[in-house]
């Protein structure tokens, strides 16, 4: 039993870090502006294609390319915010849900026109290492490491810089922050940008080990919802923990039953947590 439990758990946890990054973006946006970003999935997919293009056309190392992808994600997010979200930031939830969903449609539409819905693959490998019975793929380890670094940087930014403090102030109470002279719409745009940047990074990391299509973000977006609820809506660090929980569940559940039951359990758990403990297992906010 142990022979399978340990490798499954390790596989799951390594993926969990990346899931966590994706969910962190969603969580941050929710925490700061109470918007559920339904364009999250397509942006994850764009991150994947960003790495693909940088790797195959520019011949860049994927991890180097990740910096480019992150920057592009940030800019794209700010753009999306001003075009689609800013106007409906105070409107009922439906408006922001649909506004971000229309962005989703636009990205998928353009993406399909360019990349079609066919699978792509970044042909990149770093080899593997055997530790006892476990074979670790370096790409997975590197992705988990990158996820930890990104989380660390995000927290340094949020807690050690002036802009980061402004973001937290706006998240805490937008009206009060505005009264204190914090330019809220710029802060919101930046937060949205950081949220999408995290999504793009997560997509980029996933692209280094799984094949993907322009539609591939959808599955990770749904996972992000589950994670965000596990970790507490609006709590970025909770998202990382939620990611690890989900990752280990995905690793361990197949040991005991058919793998196809994983999503059933995930989503039943998701609905259950929303009903019973909507603030998430770890509570909301930082």
């Amino acid at each position, binding site marked *: 039993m142990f022979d399978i439990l340990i490798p499954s758990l390790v596989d799951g946890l390594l993926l969990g870090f990346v899931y966590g990054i994706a969910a962190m973006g969603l969580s941050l946006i*929710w925490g700061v502006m*109470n918007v*559920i970003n339904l364009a999250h999935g397509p942006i994850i997919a764009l991150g994947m294609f960003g790495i693909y293009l940088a790797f195959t056309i520019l011949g860049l190392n994927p991890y180097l390319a990740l910096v480019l992808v992150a920057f592009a994600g940030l800019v794209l997010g700010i753009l999306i915010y001003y*075009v*689609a979200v800013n*106007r*409906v930031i105070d*409107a*009922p*939830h*439906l*408006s922001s*849900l*649909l*506004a971000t*969903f*229309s*962005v*989703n*449609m*636009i990205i*998928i*539409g*353009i993406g*399909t*026109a360019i990349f079609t819905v066919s699978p792509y693959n970044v042909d990149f490998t770093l080899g593997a290492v055997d530790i006892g019975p476990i074979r670790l793929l370096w790409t997975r380890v590197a992705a988990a490491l990158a996820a930890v670094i990104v989380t660390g940087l995000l927290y340094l930014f949020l807690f050690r810089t002036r802009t980061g403090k402004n973001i937290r102030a706006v998240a805490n109470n937008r009206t009060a922050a505005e009264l204190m002279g914090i330019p809220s719409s710029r802060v919101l745009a930046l937060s949205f940008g950081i949220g999408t940047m995290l999504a793009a990074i997560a997509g980029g990391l996933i692209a280094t080990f799984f094949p993907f299509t322009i539609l591939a973000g959808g599955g990770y977006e*749904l996972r992000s*919802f*589950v994670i965000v*609820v596990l970790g507490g809506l609006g709590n970025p660090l909770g998202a990382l923990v939620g990611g690890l929980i989900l990752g280990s569940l995905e690793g361990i559940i197949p040991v005991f039953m*058919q793998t*196809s*039951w*994983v*999503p*059933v359990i*995930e*989503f*039943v758990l*998701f*609905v259950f947590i*929303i*009903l019973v403990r*909507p603030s998430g297992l770890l509570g909301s906010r930082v």
Partner: protein
Amino acid sequence: MKILRKPGFWLPIMLVLLLGLWPVMTDNAANREVVNSILVSVALASSLNILLGYTGYVSFGHIVFFGFGAYTGFYLMSEQGWPIYAAMIMAGLVPAVLAYLLGSAILRLRGAYFALATIGINEAARAFVKNFDPLGGSVGMQLNFQIYNDYGGAAQALWLTYYLLLGVTIVILIVSYLVRFSKFGLGLMAIRENEDAAEVMGVVAPSAKTRAYVISAFFPGIVGLLFFFKNATILPGDAFRLHLSIETIVMVMLGGAGTVLGPVLGGAGYQRLRGTLLVTPLFRNVQLVVAGVLLLTIILFIPAGVVGWLRYHVRGLRRVLE
């Protein structure tokens, strides 16, 4: 009947009826298929409108009822040999009961939490059916072609399905109108505007919401059965497609949430646009972009939708467009 003198009542019905009779007059299967897909959209959008438009609850799980109803009816027809009429009734009732049970749990949630929960339910339902062998599991179920012979052969069966769909769509519109202009509907709209204030005024929100949810869940299942009966194949991925839920919301918003006519126009407009772009290779992908830009424009500039906007800006139309 006083109600028949109300243009707001007969206008949507006449529109759908005219559209619905066109393939019959021309006796053309191609036209029928075009209208068939429009009717599916109109029926889904109008039934969702009862929850989304009147009650103000954003459900991403409308298609759960479409899927469950379709599966129920499909199972009864293919495994139990039920006739389509009886199966249709069950295809409506089973989702309605499901909505009643679900509703008492999730309708307590407000705003985004409700929306998230409905997404979760849709995904859980699909994943579950994929694993549930009595309903065919991940490979779904197929109808034996001989079943069409019970209805006079395939050609006749397709026409029958079409008439049934047209009938169901018109019933939905009648129900939608009756709800909209009833005391019950007034209560729903009060909930939509401000649930706490509505409760203070005496609107029994939990039961009103549940009833609205049940009504809006009754019809998609029937539509689903007709849809999959026509295709003779049902698969979990097709029956519980989250994207279809979202498209339905888009249709409602496009036409105007909370109006009777809005979902008719929204459903027809969206579906026609889609159908046209579907087979145009150059524009196939642009379909999504066009729909996305359209939706964004509506959300940002005319959140009341086409009908809402017209009602607001053209006073004379208020009595006509409801």
